[in-house]
Structures are given as C-alpha cells and as structure tokens.
C-alpha cells in the first residue's frame, strides 16, 4: 500500500460520510453557512464533531481543510509565509489562507489549544468583514461567500487559562453537541461496525452506566467513539467484557477501584 498526498483544496469529500443528525444541527449549519456566519462546535470528546464537519463538507460540496491546534501554532502557520526557492522568493499560503481562496470550509479543531495571539488572526475573518489580513504581503484576503470558518471547543475540561475569550466566542453561531439518545447511538454503533443490534444496545447501556459515574470519580463517561471502538473489537471476536475493559474502562481511568467497578458493570450487562 502506498500513502497518498492530497492537496486539501482539491479534496472534495466524494462519498457521503455517515452522519446521524442528533437535532437540527444540519439545518442550522446550512443556514449559518448561507448567511456567511462562522460556526462554533461545542461538545465532549468523541461525540461526532469531526464526523459532522466531514458530512457538512460533503453536503455543501466544499473542500474541508482541518487544522488541529496546538500551543506552538503561530499566526504564520495559519496564514502563510515567504520561502526562498531557487533564488526566488515564493509566498506559501497557510491552510487558513488556502481555505479562504478556494472558498472551502476551514475547521480549526480544539481552538483553545492555540496561542492567544494566534486566535485573534481569525477575528476579522469571523465578523462581517470576512477578510484575512496577510501582513507580510500587505494584503487583505477577502473571503468568497462559500468560505466557512468553523472551530471546535470542549468546554468540559478546560483550565481557566485556556478558556475561550468572549471576544472570540461571541463571533460564532454555536452548535452544542452531546452524546446521542440511546436509540440513535445504538444505530450509530451498529452502522459503523456491523455489530449485531442486541450487542450494540448493551454497549450503549454500558456507556450510560459509565456516564452515571461522571463526577463520582470519572471526568467523562464513555464517548460514542469509545463505543465504536469496543464494538469493532467485539466484531473481530473479542468477548464483550474483555472488549469493554480494553477499549472503554482502561481509556477512562487508571484508578483501580473505578476500573474494578466499571469491569463489574460490563460483566453484569453481558
């Protein structure tokens, strides 16, 4: 097998990414996009935010450019910089500039991880000016109507130092995500893995048991992502209790008592 290099602006999502709407998020996102409003996705880890963005990119037929933010991310990393090539200087767009140029969707994942001074470069882009200042080139890049800026943020475990600034968050239309209703979550687990419905239902029940423990020793209950992973193990022949332990319990905690309790929960359920 060989790896494949893709130029993001040519990377249109061709086949429909499987996404189960939980509420009216698809309609709201579409409306925001049509009105050229940026969108903030809030929600716990593994609840389908990234999947939703892929789905919307497909639905709106726009290329999707995703940037995972980290604390060394500078403004030039997003906007672009000059490089020298063969005695010539060449300007190279950063991912944000590329998304603006091609009228794509730029998804900045975990925006609070980025440095504060980086966050502010998106401000002019995120209000009604819709421009990206490119200081080095002395230019303002005007976003076409198709361009869409989306950022994500998990309000769950941010420290005070990493809270999203009001001046940032108040520019966005906020969509709140949470784990889907049991019936829906069961369907997602089933469709993603081909696991039999009975087992999928038990896995969802198990997730709820761990979510009951949130705040009583767990920071978070099991996410949809963890369920999908456990289901994949089960489908490849791992017994359910062992799969829950490996894919869910160990991912949630290191505390021995908590591990034991979660293990007993899955042993009772299957």
């Amino acid at each position, binding site marked *: 097998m060989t790896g494949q290099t893709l130029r993001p602006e040519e990377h249109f999502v061709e086949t429909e990414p499987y996404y189960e709407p939980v509420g009216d998020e698809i309609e709201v996102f579409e409306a925001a996009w049509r009105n050229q409003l940026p969108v903030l996705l809030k929600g716990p880890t593994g609840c389908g935010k990234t999947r939703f963005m892929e789905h919307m990119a497909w639905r709106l037929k726009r290329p999707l450019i995703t940037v995972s933010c980290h604390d060394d991310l500078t403004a030039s990393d997003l906007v672009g910089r000059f*490089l020298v090539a063969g005695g*010539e200087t060449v300007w190279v767009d950063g991912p944000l500039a590329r998304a603006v140029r091609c009228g794509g969707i730029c998804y900045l994942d975990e925006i609070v991880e980025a440095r504060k001074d980086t966050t502010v470069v998106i401000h002019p882009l995120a209000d009604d000016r819709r421009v990206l200042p490119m200081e*080095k080139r002395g230019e303002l890049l005007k976003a076409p109507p198709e361009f869409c800026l989306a950022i994500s943020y998990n309000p769950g475990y941010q420290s005070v130092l990493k809270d999203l600034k009001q001046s940032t968050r108040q520019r966005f239309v906020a969509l709140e995500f949470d784990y889907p209703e049991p019936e829906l979550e069961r369907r997602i687990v089933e469709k993603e893995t081909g696991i039999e419905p009975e087992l999928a239902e038990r896995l969802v029940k198990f997730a709820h048991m761990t979510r*009951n423990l949130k705040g009583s020793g767990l920071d978070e209950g099991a996410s949809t992502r963890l369920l999908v992973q456990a289901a994949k193990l089960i489908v490849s022949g791992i017994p359910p209790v062992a799969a829950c332990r490996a894919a869910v319990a160990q991912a949630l905690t290191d505390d021995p008592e908590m591990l034991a*309790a979660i293990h*007993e929960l899955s042993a009772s359920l299957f």
Partner: protein
Amino acid sequence: MAAVPPPAARAPEGEPLSAAAIEARLDEHLDLVLSSRRTAAGPARELAAFSRAEQELVLRWVAVLAAAHAELAYQFASLAPRALRLMDEAGVEAWVRQAMDTYDGAGLYPAVAALREVEAFAERARARAAGLALEEVAGVLERYVRGLGGRPLKVEAGEAPWTDTETLHLPPVLGVLGDREGNFRLYKAMAVCLWAQCWFGTWRAPLVARLRGAGAEAAALYAALEALRLEARLARALPGARRELDALAAALAVAPWPEPWPEAARRLAAPEATAADSLELALAWAGRVAPPPPRPWEGPPRPEAVAATLEARLERERRTLRRELAALAEEQRGAVPDPVRLEAAPFALERIEDPAAPEGFTFRLELDGQPIEPPEEVRGLLTSIVQDLGEIPEEYLVPAGPGEYDAGAQPAGRDPRDVWKGMYHEEGAHLHDEWDYRRGHYRKRWCVLRELDVHPVRDGFVERTLRRHRGLVASLRRTFEALRGEDRLLRRQPEGEEVDIDALVEAYADAATGQEMTDRLFVRKRREERNIAVLFMVDMSGSTKGWINDAEREALVLLCESLETLGDRYAIYGFSGMTRKRCELYRIKRFDEPYSDEVRARISGIRPQDYTRMGVAIRHLTGMLREVEARTKLLVTLSDGKPDDFDGYRGTYGIEDTRMALVEARREGIHPFCITIDREARDYLPHLYGPANYVVVDEVRKLPFKVSDVYRKLTS
C-alpha cells in the same frame, strides 16, 4: 515521623509493674473521674497480671484517651484486661482507635458503647482475617451501583443485607465462601439485589404504605416474591448479574423453593408483572404459605425503616424540585416566575418510550411547551421521585412561589460531625477532607487547619550558617546562575552569537519582494522566563528535634540563597499539629513576600512542634498553588519519616491519605516531590510519590547541600 515522645516506639522492657505502680500511673490521668468510691485499683489489679509490654500499651493509650476525655480513658482501662485476653496488641489498638474515631464523630457515650463491644469487635477482627471485609470493597460496590443508575446509594455495614432505599446495609465481613473472589461475588449479589429493589419499584410509596400494616409475615412473603420478580428483571436487564446469582446458588448449594413458589416465579417473570402483583400475592398468602428461608444474599426486609426514609425524602424532594423549577423558569425566561402565569402550569412532562427504563418510559421536561434540557440536579430529582412514586405528580411541577423560597431552605447544612466543642474552633480555620482507605471514601471536612506565623528569632543563625558554608554558598550560586543561563535559544534577535538561518531566509525573501529587511537575524542564548513556582513544605514535627531541625533550617537558608539567584517564585511553609482538630501550617515565606530579614528570622525560629498529619497540609498547599499562575508547579516536601498523628493517623491510614492528597495535587497539575532522611522511606515513598519522585538523603549533615542540589536537578 513519630512525634515526641514517639508513643509506639518507646520499647517497654523489664519486669511487669506492680498493681500499686499501675494504679499510681492511672491516677495521674484519671484523677478527674475518680472518687473515693470509684478508684483505679480494680483495673490496676487486673493489669498487674500482664506483661510489661502489654501494661505499657494500656498506659500509653490511657494517656492518649485522657487527653480527649478522662471517662473514656477510665472505661478503656477497665475493659483493657478483657481486650488483652481476646486480641493481640494490634487488635487492641485497632479497638481503641475505633472508639477514638467514634468519640471524634459522635461523642462520649457512643464511644464508650463502642469500647464495651469488645467481644463483638474481636469476633469481627477474627472473621476479617479469614474472609473479606466490607471496607475493602465498599468503594467498588458504591461505584458499581452508582453506575447501574438511579438514586445514589451509600454502602454501610449492618447485620444482614437490607436497604432503606438510600443506604445499602451489608455485613461487615463475609467468610461464607472460601476465597476473597467468592466472597466478593456474594457482596456484589447482595448489592445488585438491593439496588434492583430500589430501581424496579419494590419500595414504591403506595406499596410501602400498604405493607406497613400487614405484619411481619406478609413483609417476608412480599420480599420473597419480589426476589423472584427481580431475578427475572435482572435476567433481562443485566444477564451477567443473573448468571452470577445462579452460580452463587450452585456454589452454596441453595435448595430451590418448593411449590407454590416456582409457580409464582413464572407469573412474576412476565414483563408486565409489577411489585403490586407481588404485594397482592403476599397479602393473599399471608397465614397460608410459610415464607421461604432467605438465600445467602438476602435478608429480612424493613418496611418501617423504608417508610421513614421515604416520607422524609418525598417531602424534601418535592420542595427542592419546586424551588429548582422556579429558578429554572426564571433563568429560561429571564424573569421571576409570574404568579399569574404559574396558574397555567409552565412545566409539563412528556412521556418518552424507553424499554430500558423500569417503567418502560422516561420523561422529557417541557417549559411553556418547549422541551428543555434540565440541569443535573433537576434530572437527579426527577429520577429519584419516579423511583418513589412511579410518576411525577402534577403538584411537584408547580414552581415555588416567592414566599416559598426560604420556607424549606436547609440551614446551610453542616454535618453535625463537623461541629465540636472546645476553644479550637472553626473560626478562621480551614476544613479539609481526609481520605479513609478503610471506608474507601473521604471523611468530609474532617481536619481543621490553621495558618500560623513562625515566631521570628534573631539569633544570628542565618549569618552563622552562611559563614560556615561559605564555600558551598559560592558554588551553589555559580551552579544556579549557570542554570539560569542554560535555557533555550532565543530566535530572531537583533543581536546574538549566531545567525538565525530561518530568519535570514525570510528576510531575504522580504527583501526580494521589495519589503523592508528585518534586522532580527540572530540567535541569542539567554535566559527564558523560568515560569516555575515551587512550594516547600517542611516537617516541623516533634521528631525533628535536635540536629534534624538544625539541618533543615540550614538547608532552607542555602535554598533561599540559591532560589534568589535563580529568580523562581517560591514559598515555604512548615507543617505540624496534633489530631485532626488542630492541624497547623506555619508561614515561613509566602509567595508574594521577598526574602527579607523577617523571613530569615522566621527560618531561624523554626522549632519542632507535634505530629505529622501530612494529607491535610498537602491539600491546603495544593489549594495555594492552584492560585499561583505558573507553567510548572512544584510541591517539595522535606521530611524525616512517615505520616503520623496520634488519633489513628498512622500506618496504612496515614500513608493512604497522604497518597490520596498527592493524587489530588497531581490532578491539579502540580508535581510533588519528597526529600527525606528516613532510611526506611524506600518502603513507602515509591507508593506515595512514584518511583522517581523522591530522594532519600542518607546523612543528615548532607541535607543542606542536597536540598538545593535536588532542586537544581528537578528544574533543569
């Protein structure tokens, strides 16, 4: 680190004391409660028959107890001979400690009662040695039933398994099955069956009301029928748990109940069967069918206790729910609920089918016809009320009017355990939880801590130390200065040692496009802001008396010199105390305080105090570090031994609490580290701090140098 005098360490040897000698020593402590008719002669005579070691143990504890209450000490002295005949020394100490705990929590009379139960205590201790103690698994069981869902249930020790719908009472020890695993299965079976009673409607309010008048026999029949119904429900909801019940029945050779029970079981196994069906049957059978023997995981039901709990809870939850709904309505509508509109019942519940729920449906809360997501507390209340009533009556959904707001407000509920008499009270003190590993949970607001100032002493100690270690001070300064400069390369500087290639390329590119070329083209080695805050926690327990205290103070002097060179933010606190009611932190240097003459005088003024209750000190200082903004936060403990305090804070208890406090600190992003001179520390420090986070300094005289050295290694 033991205190002065280390009570457990005074190795008593030699001839047994005579009755007269013992009486004299008892009189010293018991004076207050003795009279001409009540003397210490009796206990003294009995104690004379024991070995010197045993006698000293008793006398030592008499002294400890007398400090709390002389009567308690007298009762102990009288009961001690019996206890010594029943148990070994460790057992006797456990028995006294338990009484002390009871005294702390509940006062004199319950504590004396606890002492008097010496036989039962010894019995339990024996069983515990053979089987599995509830304390060891209570934490897991509590989390387990919490995960299963519904109202949170506490786990507590009782005689036979039963529940009042808020607490699961389970036997303190199980030894029925040969091994720990088997006994744990049995505990789990008890827990899951009692949970099922609460979750699947055994104790619905209307049923409980009918059951109360029906007599003990009907209650026993009802419990047996419910057991059958719940087994069927478990088989559907938690098949794994049901399989374990069956396996237990096989392992314990439980005989199946004879007819008419199997027939009833078939009827009650129907998905639509409810607790009401069990009750009808029980009332019909009363006087005609004998209740079957309970299985090993079952115990007699207690409808009276359930009724009392239920009644109090319904009233409380109705009030709280209505208050919460009023607040919710206000929040959602942005206005205080309008009494006129209240008539229109703003809140409603929409039933949603949910086969997994005990009733087959759950609720969605609506406000003014719009579904809303209720906050956590409201959801918990709704669940709990449905558990009790099977539904939410309409009057529960009427938001509290303005006048009703305070009517039911709990007085900012302070646990009665937290309130104790005496001068050393809560004013200006901080209350901290303490981890009790035996119970597997925190004792709430258990320790009273105060911040005090070290009395400054200007006796030339600091100057002497600096003079004596002149060479060392100079070399420390050099090392720390190097450390300060050792940091990262600064890029894009206007001047520096080397050319910054990246910057140059970019500048060249800029120039080529006709822009101004920057002059920030160099790399410079320079100190980057060291963003470190460190808090030193210094052992001031009695055991540091003498040269350890001197070494500690010298170490602090050198450390301050080093840290001043480095420019890191630091604070120093000493810790000590006696019992949980008097935990003390001594301010030596606060974060926001410069290394002044006053601070130096405080270092010089550090004097050994009492005991070492470490957990509470760590928790308090963790709170302090939380407030400091720094990229790296360190909590360095300087100590000379194990956590130890005389009200039971020793051995595993003290170690586990300390460990938990360190876990909490780590959770706050703080790195704990320990420097100790206790050579036995290798036995317990890895458990507390992790393998790489402590240093044992073998020679006290090296301490002054070592502390700075360790700090340097830690932060470079």
